[in-house]
Each structure stands twice: as structure tokens, then as C-alpha cells.
């Protein structure tokens, strides 16, 4: 006859794989999440800027003549011509990034002889000279100042607080100034940076790993034990000579066993669908996964040690998990929270697990060069287990 430990572990595995819904939540859900977020936040090839052109005067030159023609020529702009009302509406709806309003007529344009002055609300008070730090070519300012007598030739209408609008405005300004004859003081080269590790999906995968460690640990240990307590199965086991350590070891062992495919599926998926690769060694990844799993299994056991109903254990688990979902940086860096709470956030086990995993996967660090996370997780695991065993009720 095989040992109680082997039989208990086998039973857990059987129960688990015979529960299709559980399989979905454990294995399917993180994949769906990775796919959805990976697609939503994928790095688009090159972002195009949407520019609307509005002519306020009947004698304005056609869009394909003069400096405006430069906008239509450059592939990074998508140019739409329309009325003022239509353009404002598109701006409100986020359908365009910036509206270029042509303020002067064709006759005035020809006399101004191809140099543009833009009224630029955020920087220039009087609107006479475009002193524009983001573009900041000394030449443009000087030239602009030389032809400033006639007043603004274009107005840029956009939301000053929207990043895309600001980008588009600066690009349009640049293109128009150049087309109107501005000389750049020097040449610069653009180089694209798209090395693995820098994308959102690279940031997200360690977060999802941490999230599934937490969910798996709490549900896979906490919920399962409370369910057995409610069914009086714990009590029934207590009346047999079953060694209690075998029972707890079996719960833990089966949890770690389920973890393996869980983690591998997510890592493999991220690798093949998005090319996510760990910069650091696999050992480091495994160390943090294992420590994280132990810490969350311990917390799961602690949560389950007294709870008598599924409602109370679900409530407790949400109480434990919710703050970490928000604070621990699964989807965005936890650095965004105020400095005052940072030390506390760093103490959360999920923050430790995710930071450790990101350290290995993104920065290529070794596990032991992150002693804070390493030791922190070990402490979480041992303290929660010790406390849970002390508090645990069998019936």
C-alpha cells in the first residue's frame, strides 16, 4: 500500500483535473489576459499622426500648395480637410490629434514669401514669435522673428494636456517650418530601439506570473481546505491515523505540481506569441516562482486556518488579494504610487515576487543579487506557515 502522502496527493490531482472549470481559470485565464493585453498594448509599427486642416477664409490657398503640401507628402501625417465645426468635433472625439487653422489668405501668403509664423498659445504669450522649447531650433526663432510683422499665418488647435496632440503639433510645426524654408543648424539621425525586454508585454509577463502565483496559492490551498472543512472531510480524516503532516504536505505538493504547467504554459505562450524572453537565467525565474508559490500557499493556509464558510474564506481572500492586485504592479509599475507608501508596497509578497521576476527577466539580474525580494519572500513563506499551523482547526 502506498503512503498516505502519495494517496492524498494523487487524490488532489485527480480532483483537480476532473474539474474542467478550475482548469480553465487556472490555465486559460492568464493566457487570455496575456493575449488581450499583449494585443492592446502592442508596439504599433510607427504611430501616424492625424492632422485636420481648416481654412477660415475663402481666399486661402489649396491644401496641396505651399507649405501645407508638405504635410500631405509626409507619410507620418494623415491629413483631413474640413470645416471648423467638423474639426472641433473630431478633436473632441479623439479622432484627430491637431487642427491646423490657416489664418491668412493666399494674397497675404505670397507677400509673406514662404515663411511661417505660428501663434503658439502654450509658450508664446503675444503670439508674434514662436519660441517653442520642444522644437527649439535657434534658427527658426531667428527667422520667425525676422518675418513676424504680418502676425500669425497658422494656428494650432489642440488639447495641451494630450501627449499625442503635443507630439503631432510639434511634428506639424516642424514640417511646416521646414517647408517654408527653415534651415536646420545640424543633422541628426533617428535610430529605432526595439530590443526585447523594453516592450509592455515584457513588463506584463512577470506581472501575470506573479498574479497567477497569488491566485493559485490562495485558491488552491485556502479554498480547497475550507471546502473540505465544510464537508466535514477534515473531521473525518482527523478520526483516522492519517499523519497530519502528510495531509498538509500533500496539499502543498499538489499545489506546486499544478504550478508547473501553469507557469510553463504562460512562459511558452509569451515566448511564441510575443517573443518574450528572459534576459536572466531560468534558475532565477524558477527561484522566484518557487518562493512566491510557497509564500502564497502559506498565506492561503493561514486564511483557511479558521474559516468555516466559503463566504468568509472568499471574503478573506479578496481582502488579501485586492490591495496587491492594485498596488503590487501587475499591470503598471508600482512606482506610480506616492513615495510615502512605497516602503509598504515593497513589503507586499506580490510586489516582491513581481519585482524579483522583473529583475531576472527584464534586467537580467541573478536571483541572489536581489536579496531583498529573496529573503522577503522566504520570510513571508515561513512566517505564514508557522502561524497557520499554530492556528489551524481541523473541525
Amino acid at each position, binding site marked *: 500500500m502506498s503512503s498516505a502522502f502519495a*494517496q*492524498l496527493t494523487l487524490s488532489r490531482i485527480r480532483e483537480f483535473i476532473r474539474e474542467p472549470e478550475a482548469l480553465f481559470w487556472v490555465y486559460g485565464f492568464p493566457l487570455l489576459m496575456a493575449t488581450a493585453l499583449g494585443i492592446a498594448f502592442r508596439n504599433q509599427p510607427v504611430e501616424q499622426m492625424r492632422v485636420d486642416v481648416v481654412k477660415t477664409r475663402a481666399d486661402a490657398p489649396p491644401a496641396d500648395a505651399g507649405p501645407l503640401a508638405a504635410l500631405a507628402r509626409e507619410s507620418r501625417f494623415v491629413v483631413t480637410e474640413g470645416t471648423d465645426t467638423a474639426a472641433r468635433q473630431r478633436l473632441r472625439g479623439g479622432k484627430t490629434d491637431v487642427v491646423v487653422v490657416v489664418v491668412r489668405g493666399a494674397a497675404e501668403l505670397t507677400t509673406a514669401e514662404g515663411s511661417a509664423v505660428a501663434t503658439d498659445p502654450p509658450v508664446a504669450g503675444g503670439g508674434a514669435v514662436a519660441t517653442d522649447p520642444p522644437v527649439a531650433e535657434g534658427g527658426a526663432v531667428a527667422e520667425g522673428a525676422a518675418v513676424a510683422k504680418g502676425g500669425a499665418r497658422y494656428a494650432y488647435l489642440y488639447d495641451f494636456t494630450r501627449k499625442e496632440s503635443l507630439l503631432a503639433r510639434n511634428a506639424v510645426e516642424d514640417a511646416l517650418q521646414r517647408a517654408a524654408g527653415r534651415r536646420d543648424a545640424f543633422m541628426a539621425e533617428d535610430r529605432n530601439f526595439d530590443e526585447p525586454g523594453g516592450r509592455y508585454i515584457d513588463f506584463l509577463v512577470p506581472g501575470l506570473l506573479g498574479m497567477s502565483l497569488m491566485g493559485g496559492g490562495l485558491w488552491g490551498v485556502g479554498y480547497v481546505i475550507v471546502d473540505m472543512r465544510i464537508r466535514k472531510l477534515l473531521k473525518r480524516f482527523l478520526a483516522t491515523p492519517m499523519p497530519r503532516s502528510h495531509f498538509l504536505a500533500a496539499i502543498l505538493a499538489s499545489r506546486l505540481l499544478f504550478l508547473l504547467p501553469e507557469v510553463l504554459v504562460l512562459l511558452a505562450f509569451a515566448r511564441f506569441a510575443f517573443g518574450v524572453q528572459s534576459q536572466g537565467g531560468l534558475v532565477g525565474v524558477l527561484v522566484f516562482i518557487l518562493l512566491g508559490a510557497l509564500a502564497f500557499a502559506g498565506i492561503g493556509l493561514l486564511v483557511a486556518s479558521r474559516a468555516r464558510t466559503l463566504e468568509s474564506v472568499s471574503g478573506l481572500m479578496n481582502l488579501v488579494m485586492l490591495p496587491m492586485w492594485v498596488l503590487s504592479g501587475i499591470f503598471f509599475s508600482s512606482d506610480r504610487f506616492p513615495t510615502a507608501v512605497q516602503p509598504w508596497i515593497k513589503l507586499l509578497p506580490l510586489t516582491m515576487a513581481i519585482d524579483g521576476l522583473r529583475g531576472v527577466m527584464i534586467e537580467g539580474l541573478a536571483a541572489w543579487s536581489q536579496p531583498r525580494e529573496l529573503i522577503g519572500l522566504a520570510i513571508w513563506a515561513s512566517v505564514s506557515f508557522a502561524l497557520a499551523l499554530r492556528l489551524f482547526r481541523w473541525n
Partner: protein
Amino acid sequence: MSDAIRVRDLRKTYPASPPVEAVRGIDLHVERGECFGLLGPNGAGKTTTIEILEGLLDATSGDVEILGLRWDRDGDAIRQRIGISLQETRLSEKLTLRETLRLFRSFYRQGRDPDQLIAQLSLGDKADARVGKLSGGQKQRLAVACALVGDPELLFLDEPTTGLDPRSRRELWSVIQQFRDSRRTVLLTTHYLDEAERLCDRVAIVDRGRVIACDTPRALIASLGGEHVIEFQASDRLATGGAGRRPTLDAMLALPSVTGARDDGERLALSVAEPHVAIPALLARLADLGFQLAGLTTRHASLEDVFIKVAGHALSDAEPSVRE
């Protein structure tokens, strides 16, 4: 050899407001090889008592010895030698019957072959069925199989047949009898009189946390003074409609061979040793007193009669105060 179970002045008070005195001083003494029954209504304290004996609950006070051992010192040794089935356990529904038994078997140093046990409990065709798909009776039999799989010397069964149809009950009875016939001990609780009468060598009648009578079913019934019961209704011949006088219990007790009389409300019930002596005398006496007999039946006395006599209320009354 020590007794199977020895209990002295067992008490259990559940902390609550007000505290619930579930067990109020129980003494028990179960010998090896006997099938002993705790019979009592809902809330009598049967489950509380049996769970203390199983080591699952701590007593408030009292002394418990199981197979000559004590829970506080020899818990593990006791657990190796007993088998139990709780009043309600929901075994894992996703496991098959065979897997469940193998699991329980793995907890014991020695035990029985799960497959052989499955055959003995005539569950062979369900061996590979999931527990969730079994009928109530099959689940109960599985629970008993889990209790037997460690090959125990002492079996505790808390209401093993509650909710089963007559055939399933008889099947379980025969399993329990086979176990007892191999000179091993059974302690079971029940609120079925016929179960206690048929299955148990001795019965303790438990009511409101106390044992109010304890003996073999035969001796308990004999203690009524007569093994027969005559039940009858009598109406007052002189009364015009409605309820009139009723024969007094004293008058009935004065009849020959009548050892007990009680008023069940609608009918009167007499404990009688020899019905052929008592009935003619009863008929004559009723006629003398001016009563007309409306209906009369005789039957063998049962544990129910014993229960009513010692407890002062019927077994089916969970709230005894209603009748008192």
C-alpha cells in the same frame, strides 16, 4: 481483556449564550463483541457523545476509556484500531468509490483490501463510479466501507441508516451484523426503534443528555411488566355528544394482568402480560362503568413503549415540553 468502551460521568456543555448542556452525566460500559445502540430523539446528545468517544470533541468533564486506552495519551494507537462514520460527511465527489477506499486504506498500518470490501458491500458494479454519482444508500454504504477499511476492532456509526429505504437499511444491518459476528464491537446511534431492537445487543435510551434506561431490548420491554399492549378507545354512553368522562387509569390498573396504563390523549394504552386474561376483564369493567368500546387493538410491546414510559414523551417528539 479491557472493555471496549468505558465512560464515567461524561459531560459536555457547548459554550453559547445560554450554554447548551448537550450531555449531562452519561455512564456507559460497552463490552467487546457487542453491538451497542444509543437510542434517542433529535438533540438528545447522541452525536456529541459519540464524537467525544471518537476523539473528535473534548469533553467538559468525565472519564473516557477506549479499548483500555485514553485519548490524551494514546490517540494514535486508538485511531489505528477504530473505524468511524460521521452523521454527515461529503466525500470527494470527483473520486471514484475505489479511489476513495484506497485513500482511506493508506492511512492505516493494517487493513482490508478495498476491492474485497467493495464486493462485500455489494458495490462491485459501482467500484469505478464517481462518488458524486452514487445514490444516498450507496454513499452510506461507502461511508461504512471507509470505516471498515482499516480493519477496526471497534466501529462507531452515527445514524448509519438515516434516510435509507427499507432494503438498503437491511443490507447495511447485515454488514454490521457480520462485523459483530466476528467478535468485534459496534457502537451506533439511531432514532429508529426497530433498528435498535433488531440490531443491538444492548440499548441505552438517551434523552436530554442523560441515559434514562440501559439494557437488552428484551429486558427493557420486559421492564414494562408485560410484553403486550392493548390500545382502545371508549366513549361515555350517557353523555350527549361531545367529550364525556373517560375511564380512570386507576380503574384500569386494577384489572388482572395489567401492569401499566397511560393516556395517549385519544386512546388509552395498557401494558399487559396475558391479553387473554385482561381483555374479558376490561370489556366487563367498561360495561359496568357505562362506557362503550369504540376500538381495540393488541400488539407486542416495543422500545417505543419503553421510551414513552421512561422519558414521559414519545420518541418522535423532538421538543418534549410540548407534551408535558
